[in-house]
């Protein structure tokens, strides 16, 4: 064990933790916006699958990585709009609508995959883009600054989300709509406009989360590529207490333990694989439940708002 777990192994583990957290971050930060405004979108995983396929398809056909991300974002945005239409305009029950969106994404991405590609292929995704100077720093350099562009993007998103939620008038409106939509309405804040915005934004980010899997981390597409990752992202939002910084922490813990667990299995340490696979989930939940237990969910979460008339 001593010899196996060297410094360079640890650096490798940390670097892959940073990398693996990427899709969780995009999806969970997007979902944070939606939930803060009172909309629970359970369709994240389905939107990610659609995003993953769209990006993969563009890159497979044209090799255009940026185009792939843009299409994934657009497809995600459209699916977010669909969710907003169902849950805001039609005031449908949010949990059920989300599951509908998920199943749609799951089925549709597979159908498109069968029709357009049909067998498992790989593409060359986003290359590592070391940041000059910073990537030369010992230890930190390889962990943080030798990653691909989509990874960097995910981490830049966190402070932006924090800033929007805590320092801008838009953030104030989002929080008010999620806590007391009636009060926001009486002050002339359009509840549906805010919710359309946050849910579409969440959709767009979920689309990019999918792209980060199919053209940056794994560089393949197959049926149910995400394997429920979008649901983990939703859980991270809850356990992170609807705050971007805590969502970041949760994503990192989860990804690190996940990376560790994979490594343990690869090296063949005598730990039952079922237990190993379970650990990231259990540990993340324990840590976040202990640290974030004092936070209440937004009061209007998952409640449709209709002005009675």
């Amino acid at each position, binding site marked *: 064990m001593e010899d196996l777990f060297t410094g360079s192994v640890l650096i490798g583990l940390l670097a892959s933790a940073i990398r693996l957290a990427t899709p969780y971050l995009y999806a969970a930060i997007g979902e944070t916006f939606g939930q803060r405004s009172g909309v629970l979108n359970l369709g994240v995983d389905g939107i990610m699958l659609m995003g993953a396929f769209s990006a993969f398809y563009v890159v497979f056909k044209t090799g255009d990585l940026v185009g792939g991300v843009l299409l994934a974002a657009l497809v995600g945005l459209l699916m977010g709009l669909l969710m907003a239409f169902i849950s805001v305009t039609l005031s449908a029950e949010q949990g059920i609508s989300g599951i509908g969106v998920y199943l749609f994404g799951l089925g549709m991405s597979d159908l498109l995959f069968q029709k357009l590609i049909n067998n498992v292929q790989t593409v060359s995704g986003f290359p590592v883009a070391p940041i000059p100077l910073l990537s030369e720093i010992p230890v930190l350099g390889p962990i943080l600054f030798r990653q691909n562009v989509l990874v960097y993007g995910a981490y830049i998103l966190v402070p932006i989300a924090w800033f929007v939620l805590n*320092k*801008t*008038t*838009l*953030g*104030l*409106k989002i*929080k*008010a709509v999620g*806590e*007391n939509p*009636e*009060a*926001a*309405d*009486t*002050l*002339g*804040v359009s509840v549906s406009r805010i919710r359309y915005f946050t849910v579409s934004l969440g959709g767009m980010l979920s689309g990019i989360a999918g792209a980060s899997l199919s053209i940056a981390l794994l560089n393949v597409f197959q049926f149910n590529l995400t394997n429920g990752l979008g649901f983990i992202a939703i859980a991270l939002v809850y356990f992170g207490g609807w705050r971007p910084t805590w969502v970041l922490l949760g994503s990192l813990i989860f990804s690190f333990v996940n990376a560790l667990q994979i490594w343990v299995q690869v090296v063949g340490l005598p730990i039952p694989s079922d237990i190993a696979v379970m650990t990231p989930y259990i540990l993340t939940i324990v840590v976040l439940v202990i640290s974030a237990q004092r936070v*209440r969910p937004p*009061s209007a979460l998952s409640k449709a708002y209709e*002005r*009675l*008339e």
Partner: protein
Amino acid sequence: MTQKQILPSGNPRIDRLEMQGIVKRFPGVLANDHVNFDVNAFEVHALLGENGAGKSTLMKQLYGLYHPDQGQIIFDGEPRLIHSPRDAINLGIGMIHQHFMLVDSLTVAENVALGLPSTRGIMTDLDRVTKRICELAEVYGLDVEPDAYIWQLSVGQQQKVEIIKALYRGAALLILDEPTAVLTPQEVDDFFVTLTKMANDGHALIFISHKLHEVMAFTHRVTVLRDGKNVGTVNTVDTNKNLLAEMMVGRPLNFIRNYKTIKCGNPRLKVENLSALSDRGVPALKNVSFEVCAGEVLGLAGVSGNGQPELAQVIAGLRPSTSGKIMIDDENLTGSTPMQVIDKGVAYIPEKRNVEGLIKEFSVSENLIMRDLDQEIYSRNAFLNMGNIAKRSADLVKTFNVKTPSIDTPIKSLSGGNAQKVILAREISRQPKVLIAAQPTRGVDIGATEYIHERIIEQRETGTATLLISEDLDEIFALSDRIAVIFHGEIMGVVDRKDATLQSIGLMMAGEQPPETKTAE
């Protein structure tokens, strides 16, 4: 058009607003039937009417929340369409709603800034908002802490935040929908100082209340609605409480009544050395002890926030006690679940009726029988007996005069006061052994108040032990056999009604020990 006068708050004045021939229909209800109403600058115009008369509906149309089916709204001679609250705000209208419209988890300044453009573009400018709040607070004597969170504030302070919110948005006309229903007498006094100042400055104020003495003391004109129609508009100086009551209800009412004294039976409800914590984890009740006999009304007087809701919740099984005992007919009830408490024959009218006692999405009839579902006449072998439920609900709706299109209407579309009557009907009609009534007449109209008082007296005659928790001393004196006073979670003393004076109770409410501690038992 002449240049508008500017108010001291810096907002243009509204000299005259008229609502003409307003008609508003809801499914099954004609809430406003060709209503006319007007208000001028420098004036406080009261809007009176029974629960469900259409007051809030009329005002929500002025504020752009509802849209009139017919009729027009005229500002300083110009007809205007008000599509949304935003339009209303731009025209200089502010509204303080029957249920406060504040976001608990945000600060005072954030609540005020919400929805307004910022001087810093996309970023909030809370420091500037804070400064302006302080200026407005200074002018109108509204001391609030801009950085405090709403949940930390008392109801009276939240009210002040609502006024500042409206003034900040340039309100020249302020609609106050039952603003005093939840205030303590002291807070009401402060509130009227502020409003009088605003009216003297040239604001136009519309004031809705069920408390006629407030209307008499503080308004210039009164308009009365009944069943959605105008009954009349009178100058306050030309009328009196009895006349107004008659206009509202359509028949004369008895205000003060003397009830015969009843011989006290055995102690029914016994509370011994009870202590409990508040939601924030600080002691809310400290060694509270008292007894209520069968056939007795014990009035619990006290300024709000001295442990009354906690006491009621502990007895109802909704809040754990940290020590002490609760007994009903010598059976120990301490630590029982709400269901067990109900089974022992305790009825509970909670103070915050819109959150605690009703399920807003459920229908009137579902709310009415909610507590008695396991009784055989309503359900058998897991199936509901719809016929009996409907019959019982229809009865209750009728006897308690609940204005609702049908028993299947969801509670959320009832008027504020009528929603309350649903709980009252449910709890009082259960023929309880013990009735815990917290502020039972807050927010209900005078006709219903009279009715509820009669019911409480009636229950007393059949041997119910009633704990009446109220901040309204008139109510306490009118109904109680004995009066207990609570202050900072402690019982200051219990006195016989015949020995009590408004002064002696008032002093105890302020925390002074009674001269010689008389425990009349």
